[in-house]
């Protein structure tokens, strides 16, 4: 029987919310949906899938791509190969997806954000969402990683709770082992508490420009935050990063200057009450998410705002 294998992402006892998007895509694909989870007390939405397949594995082992390879081997042996294997588009999801693709010779399409059932094509972002490619997998099973927020509305309740299945895990591999979690250092500024964020991106150009935006933030009584490249270049501290690998923020106003609007950034700020974007590129994807937009040079806008705010 054909089926879709949905590899759940779990972390520190939590069934990650972005799994709902994998469940949604699973529903669209139409085959029997089988949710793979490690043994443990996870809150599994067992009405949204046909089968919950529990594997005896510790969480850290399950999240290790090399162990996941062994687990998939056991699943394929027990149930036959699925048509699709879905992972979350996340740090561990993409890691295991690509590795499994190489290991079993499976086609892989990452960051899938749309599916056209009639044409049988998957939509994948290119150039930070400026264009999308429509892809078809040339064989089965195909491995897909699913973009968070893209499919959750399609996850439909079934009439009955899922059937329970179980498999034995394999012995943990020694070639890669988990040591410990490392928490982010605590800092005095918490951008998640700010009502008004002025967020700067790579568009500010160089480090010397940062001071001018600090002044603007001061004049507007906003807190300064930034996109990943600004933090990577150490123009602002890590605690000020907005996005999937930084903080998720929901201020009253999010003023983005020189930020293009890559998915990893958008995911961290899209629920802000009011988003205002300033960018010189009229095609910047951020304008699709903003409530207000200004097309223009951010430095000129900065200087004029400072002048007006003083006056």
């Amino acid at each position, binding site marked *: 029987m054909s089926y879709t294998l949905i590899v759940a992402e779990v972390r520190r006892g939590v069934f990650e919310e972005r799994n709902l998007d994998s469940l949604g895509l699973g529903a669209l694909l139409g085959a029997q949906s089988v949710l793979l989870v490690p043994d443990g007390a996870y809150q599994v939405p067992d009405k949204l899938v046909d089968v919950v397949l529990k594997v005896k594995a510790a969480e850290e082992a399950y999240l290790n791509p090399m162990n996941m390879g062994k687990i998939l081997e056991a699943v394929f042996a027990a149930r036959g190969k699925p048509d699709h294997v879905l992972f979350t588009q996340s740090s561990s999801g993409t890691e295991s997806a690509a590795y499994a693709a*190489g290991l079993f010779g499976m086609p*892989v399409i990452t960051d899938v954000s749309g599916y056209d059932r009639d044409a049988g094509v998957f939509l994948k972002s290119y150039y930070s969402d*400026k264009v999308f490619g429509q892809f078809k997998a040339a064989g089965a099973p195909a491995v897909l990683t699913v973009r968070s927020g893209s499919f959750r509305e399609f996850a439909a309740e079934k009439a009955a709770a899922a059937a329970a299945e179980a498999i034995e895990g394999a012995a943990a591999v020694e*070639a890669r082992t988990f040591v410990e979690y490392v928490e982010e250092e605590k800092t005095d500024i918490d951008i998640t508490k700010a009502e008004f964020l002025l967020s700067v991106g790579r568009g500010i150009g160089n480090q010397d420009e940062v001071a001018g935006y600090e002044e603007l933030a001061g004049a507007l009584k906003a807190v300064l935050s930034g996109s990943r490249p600004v933090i990577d270049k150490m123009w602002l501290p890590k605690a000020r990063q907005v996005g999937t690998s930084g903080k998720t923020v929901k201020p009253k*106003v999010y003023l983005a200057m020189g930020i293009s609007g890559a998915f990893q950034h958008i995911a961290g700020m899209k629920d802000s009450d009011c988003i205002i974007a300033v960018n010189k590129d009229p095609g910047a994807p951020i304008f*699709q998410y903003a409530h207000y937009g200004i097309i223009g040079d951010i430095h000129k806008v900065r200087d004029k705002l400072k002048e007006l705010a003083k006056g």
Partner: protein
Amino acid sequence: MNILVFTKRVAATQEEELRITGEGQAVDLSKVPFKVNDWDNYSVEEAVRIVDKAGGSVTAISIGDAESDEVLRRAIAMGAKDGFLVETGEALHDPFTRGELIRGFIDKEKVPFDIILTGVQSEDDQFGAVGGVLAGLMGLPYASMVIGIDAVETDHVVIRRELEGGLQEKVKVATPCVLSIQSGINEPRYVSIMGIRKASKVERKVFKADGYEKGSPKIELVKWVYPEKKGGATMLDGELADVCGQLLGILKEKGVYQ
């Protein structure tokens, strides 16, 4: 320590308008400038730092057309000893095919290595898959989103992987292995034009991609499309002072500015 680092020349499209041509057959990149993939800049730097401490040498490898020589010269200027170009004329959209090509090349040319570094993703296609596919194909241990390399020992490395929301995990990985490097892991050194000119004097070897085994692509690009328009923003128009005045008005209305 022999380190292979994969570096790619990509279109810098962040500030460019992109046009899809024909019925969605191609994206017109003819007027777009090209540069080194941001992530690969970090991994070349990391490779050079490892070798500075542990000894050994760095080989930079690029797959692409003759123009990709540019990113090899750059890597050499940063401290790589060798630069290899695996020259291919055809578009390889499939990260799996790319992984196969790399494996075929390493096997056939018997390129020695202890660690293979790739970037987490390419800026252009953002597949983030080549490193993982390659490790799976070669049966090597793998870790991605590497944001810190804390120890390099003779038979293993201790690294930190970036997870979501600022959390990291420390992981021990046996060598030889494949690691995909995340941006921000280090501060890449500045490369001067003089440095690149000097690097051009170091011979770069060119290999023809046709010579290496790879299967047919496992995914097919059907067509290119523009993103679906969402609501879109209300654009503030007018003279600079006028636009900025409107912006301040919105801030007042939202109650975040008096």
